[in-house]
Every structure is written in structure tokens, then in C-alpha cells.
């Protein structure tokens, strides 16, 4: 048998016919999508903006038809890639950053914190329970202090320290160098924020490490309090802790609550599937965690700058209490009013 040679003019296969009919539309969509990917959707002209949905639908139907009638794999792959890119530019568009930000402060953050109220309450109770426990233990036997606080962190503030030395650590003396307050505040902020992010992420292990982290935080708090209280410095150390501590401990409790939510959602998904439950918890918890990082920024400023410049116990306590009332009003009272207005 010989393969004979003939001449023909009509397109032989569907792909050719199809390419000829629609290639211009595909190329146009390709150009517009490439443009959006490089710049933004706002940089399109009105004509292009109007043409985009129509071109997208044309290309999508081209893909359907090509899959059913054509065997040109390169063509189908090209159309699949083009449609996917266009889909994500049309349906996956990002809300503008400023609107995401206003939504976060107006609804997202207080809403997430409010929905975590059970976990938050548990973390607060755990912190103070652990603090009281540590305090009682050290009061009965001061050697407990050394098993709770690592040596480096104590900085001489242990049960053997004198009352004068302890007092001197609470206040800034006149001659002390105050140049590094900003850097100190920044260091405290970054360090504490990293711990808040850990508390969130560790929640994945069924919340166990997060609970331990919160527990240990409470123990340290109680241990330090016990040392100062034994030397009759209770009101002084409360003022020293409160000015930033109300914000900082609240923030750590909130990030712990966020971590617990994830762990609990995975361990006990309830009616939803484990996967859906984890996703729902993960997004709420992430919002609360970002909020906690912002709170730790405020706490860093209060601790690094406020506490170093304000040496009056009453004023320190007042500031701490006022900030705490502010946070509680923002999280729990304000959004409730918004929802009751039917917003």
C-alpha cells in the first residue's frame, strides 16, 4: 500500500477551525489578564473592563467545546491555564487593603475576640489560678521560686534579695540612662509577639502546649509577686506590673484562646467535618492573633516608655486599669451595640 498525496483546502480538524474562529478573543483575554496580574484591575480602561467578563465567558465556553470536540491537547491546556488565571482575577479578587483594614478594626477583630470568650475566660482563670498557686507555694517554701523561674530571668530578684534592691528594680532612678527606651520597647514588642504567635500555632497540637504556655506565664507572674510581697512591696509591684500587664496579659490570654480554639476545633469538631471546623476556627483565631500582636505593641510602649518615665504607683495602676477598661469596652460592649442596631 502506498500513502498517496492529495491537495485539500478545508481545515482538516476541529482544533484548526476553532483556533481560527476564537483565537483573537483568547489573545485579548490573555493580554487583559496579564495586564491585571502585572498592575491592578484599576489600571484597565473602561473598554477593557467591560470586555473582560464577556471574554472570560467566551473563553470558558471555548474550553468546554474544545474538551468535547477537539483532540488538540496543547489547545486544551492553553485554554485551561487561561481560564484559571482569568477566574482568579475575576472571582478571587482581593478586597482593597484599606477596606480590609477598616473591616478588621470595626468588625473583624472585636468579633473574633467576642467569639473566643469562653477560651479567653479559661485562659484568664488559668493565668490567675497559676499565679495564686505559685504565690502560695513560694510563701510556704521559698525554694519553690528556683524551680519556677530560670536563673537568668530573675536578675537577682529572688527570695534572698533585700527589700532595698527589690524596690530599686521597680523604679527608674534619676541618673539612669533613658536613651534606649524606644529600643527596649521595640524589643519587648517583638519578643512578646513571637510568643503570641507561638501560642496560636501550638494550639494545633490539640491545645496542650498552648495551655502549658499560659500556665507557665501565670506561674512566673505569681512567683515574682510572691518575692516582692514577702518584702512588703505588694502595692509597688502591682503598679509596676499593671501599667503594661493588663494589656500584655490580656493579649497573651487572647492568643492562647486563639490557639485553644484551633486545638478544640480539631479535637472536637462537633457537627461540622473536622476539616471545615479547623478552617473556621483557623480564620477566627488568626484574626484574634493579629489583634493580640497589635495589643502587644501597645503594651511594649507602656512598658518600655510609660513605666520607665512614670514612677508613681497610683498613676501606674490608674493607667493600667483605664487601658483595660478601654480594651473590654472595645471588644465586648461596642460591637454588641452595632449588632443591636441591625448592622
Amino acid at each position, binding site marked *: *500500500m502506498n*500513502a*498517496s*498525496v*492529495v*491537495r*485539500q*483546502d478545508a481545515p*482538516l*480538524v*476541529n*482544533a*484548526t477551525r476553532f*483556533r*481560527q474562529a476564537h*483565537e483573537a478573543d*483568547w*489573545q485579548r483575554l490573555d493580554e487583559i489578564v496579564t495586564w491585571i496580574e502585572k498592575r491592578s*484591575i484599576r489600571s484597565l480602561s473602561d473598554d477593557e473592563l467591560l470586555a473582560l467578563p464577556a471574554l472570560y465567558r467566551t473563553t*470558558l465556553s471555548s*474550553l*468546554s467545546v474544545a474538551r*468535547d470536540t*477537539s*483532540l488538540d*491537547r496543547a489547545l486544551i491546556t*492553553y485554554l*485551561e*491555564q487561561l*481560564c484559571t488565571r482569568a*477566574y482568579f482575577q475575576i*472571582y*478571587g*479578587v*482581593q*478586597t482593597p487593603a484599606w477596606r*480590609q483594614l477598616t473591616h*478588621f478594626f470595626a468588625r473583624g477583630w472585636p468579633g473574633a475576640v467576642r467569639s473566643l470568650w469562653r477560651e479567653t475566660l479559661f485562659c484568664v482563670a488559668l493565668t490567675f489560678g497559676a499565679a495564686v498557686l505559685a504565690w502560695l507555694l513560694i510563701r510556704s517554701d521559698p525554694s519553690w521560686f528556683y524551680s519556677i523561674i530560670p536563673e537568668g530571668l530573675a536578675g537577682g530578684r529572688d527570695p534572698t534579695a533585700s527589700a532595698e534592691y527589690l524596690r530599686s528594680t521597680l523604679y527608674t532612678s534619676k541618673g539612669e540612662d533613658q536613651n*534606649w527606651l*524606644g*529600643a527596649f520597647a*521595640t524589643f519587648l*514588642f*517583638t519578643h512578646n509577639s*513571637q510568643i503570641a*504567635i*507561638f501560642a496560636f*500555632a*501550638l494550639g*494545633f*497540637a490539640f491545645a496542650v502546649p498552648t495551655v502549658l504556655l499560659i500556665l507557665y506565664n501565670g506561674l512566673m507572674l505569681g512567683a515574682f509577686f510572691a518575692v516582692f510581697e514577702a518584702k512588703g512591696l505588694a502595692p509597688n509591684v502591682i503598679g509596676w506590673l499593671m501599667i503594661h500587664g493588663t494589656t500584655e496579659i490580656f493579649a497573651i490570654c487572647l492568643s492562647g484562646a486563639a490557639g485553644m480554639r484551633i486545638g478544640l476545633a480539631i479535637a472536637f469538631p462537633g457537627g461540622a467535618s473536622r476539616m471545615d471546623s*479547623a*478552617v473556621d*476556627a*483557623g*480564620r*477566627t*483565631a*488568626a484574626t484574634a*492573633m493579629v489583634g493580640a500582636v497589635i495589643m502587644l505593641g501597645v503594651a511594649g510602649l507602656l512598658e518600655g516608655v510609660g513605666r520607665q518615665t512614670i514612677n508613681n504607683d497610683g498613676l501606674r495602676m490608674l493607667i493600667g486599669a483605664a487601658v483595660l477598661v478601654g480594651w473590654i469596652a472595645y471588644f465586648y460592649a461596642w460591637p454588641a451595640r452595632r449588632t443591636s442596631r441591625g448592622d
Partner: protein
Amino acid sequence: MATSAIHGLRRTFITPEGVDLKLELGSAGSRASAFMIDLVLMAVILIAVTFGLLYVLRAVEIAKAGGAEEVVAVIWLLGAFVLRNGWFSLFEMGSRGATPGKRLLGLRVVARDGARLTGAAVIARNAMREIEVFLPLSFLGAQAAEGTADTFLTIFALLWSGIFLFFPLFNRDRLRVGDLVAGTWVVQAGKGGLSADLVGSGYRARRTFPPEALKLYGIYELQTLEDVLRTENPDAIVTVAGTIRRKANLPDDGDDYGFLSDYYAALCAHLEAGLMAGRRRESKFVE
């Protein structure tokens, strides 16, 4: 939007218009390479900024202006914090949904349900990196720096990291722990041009083939032949042309590429005619 049927890394993904986009998930290899590229970029930026700030500090000290150390320290601390916690999140919140590393490998982060990717989801998936990579490594680093890292601790840290690093290999959707919690996955967002039409149109001399020669193969073989023609590997062309000639009992006319493209066109037209009549022949093994 349903996501159910599975073929390798292809996932059914139906748009509101009712068309299945058949998304392709990013492979573990390209995900890992993208992450390494990002880490290298972060390290380079950190080192460059550190040296830059030290240079500025020296210049200021020569000019005898006070207080510069503190400003530099604040910038460095905040910069390092933002770099570590913001690099992935800020890039993935952008319109491309990808870090520079992912962009180089043609990857993109999308929400599994097809909805828009929210900031909360991006932050959740990246905050999880803290326990996946940074926690065990920084723990190990700190212990090693103090010279107290023992074998047990090293093994534990590596094991911990290992569980999370290889987590994507143990689930069919290649989800990282962060993806799992955030409801995201990473897809190939490849960008290729439309390659030329192999058959083409218009007046052209073509070989014709007897019907028996066109009944030899199905769609799978046709598309394999398409790959051979597009890659234009001379050895493959000679081998494939020889096989087809032998099977179809056709003489060798010395023009392998011309023979193959004509056979491709004829087979394609033949199989398409079958499609129109409702007969889809997937491969040579089905009738």
C-alpha cells in the same frame, strides 16, 4: 464549588458558570523549592539591611550626631520582625497570591472553596510556619549556640520538624498544616502561550492513509504523538515513524517528520469524526 474527583494532582474545580477548571496542585518538589528560594531571599535581605544600617551608623558616628544607635536598633528589630512574620503573608495578600519564590515556580495560594482569599486565611496559614520550621530550628540554634544541644534534643527537633515538613506528603491534597487550618491550597498557575496548530489549514500537500492504518491508535496515542511532534526530538521522531510504518505496513519515504505530521492530522480527523458520532476511543486497547 465542588472539589472531589482526583487524578494525580488534578482536582475538579467547578466555576459558577459550571465549567470544570481541573486545577493542578503544586507538587511537593516545587513547593519546597519555592520555600527555599524565599528563605534565601529573606536571608539576603536581612544581611544586606544589617550591613546597610551598620554603614549608616558609622557615617553618623563620624558626623558626631548622638542617638543614632537607638534609631538603628529600633529599625533593625522591627525590620527583622516584619521580615520573619510578614514576608509570606504580605506577598500572598497581594493580587498574585504568591511570594517571589512561588511566583518563580508558577505557584499560587487560593482558597479551597474557590472564594476570595482573605487576609485572615493568609495569616493563619503562615503563622503555622512558626511551629513547622522556625520553632524547632531556632530552639536548636539557641541550644547549639550555648553548646548544650545534645543528641536527644537534636533528634527531637529534627523529628518535630520532619513531621510537619513531610505533612504535605501524607495527604492527597498536599496540604501543609497551615493550609489545613486556613482552608487554602497551592495550585499551579502556569502561564503558557498558545502553541502553533500542528495541522494548520490551507493548501498543502498531504499523504492519505488507508482506513486500516487509522484504526491502529486511540486518543492517548494521538496525544503522545502530539508531544513528539511538538518537542521535535529527532531520535523520538525516527523511532515513532518507524513503529507506525511497520504496524501500518507503509513504505519509508525518507521524510519522517512530514510523515508523522500527516499521520497525526489524518488520525486526529478520523478520531474527531468518531467523537461526533459519539464514539470516543481513549486508547489503542479499546475498540
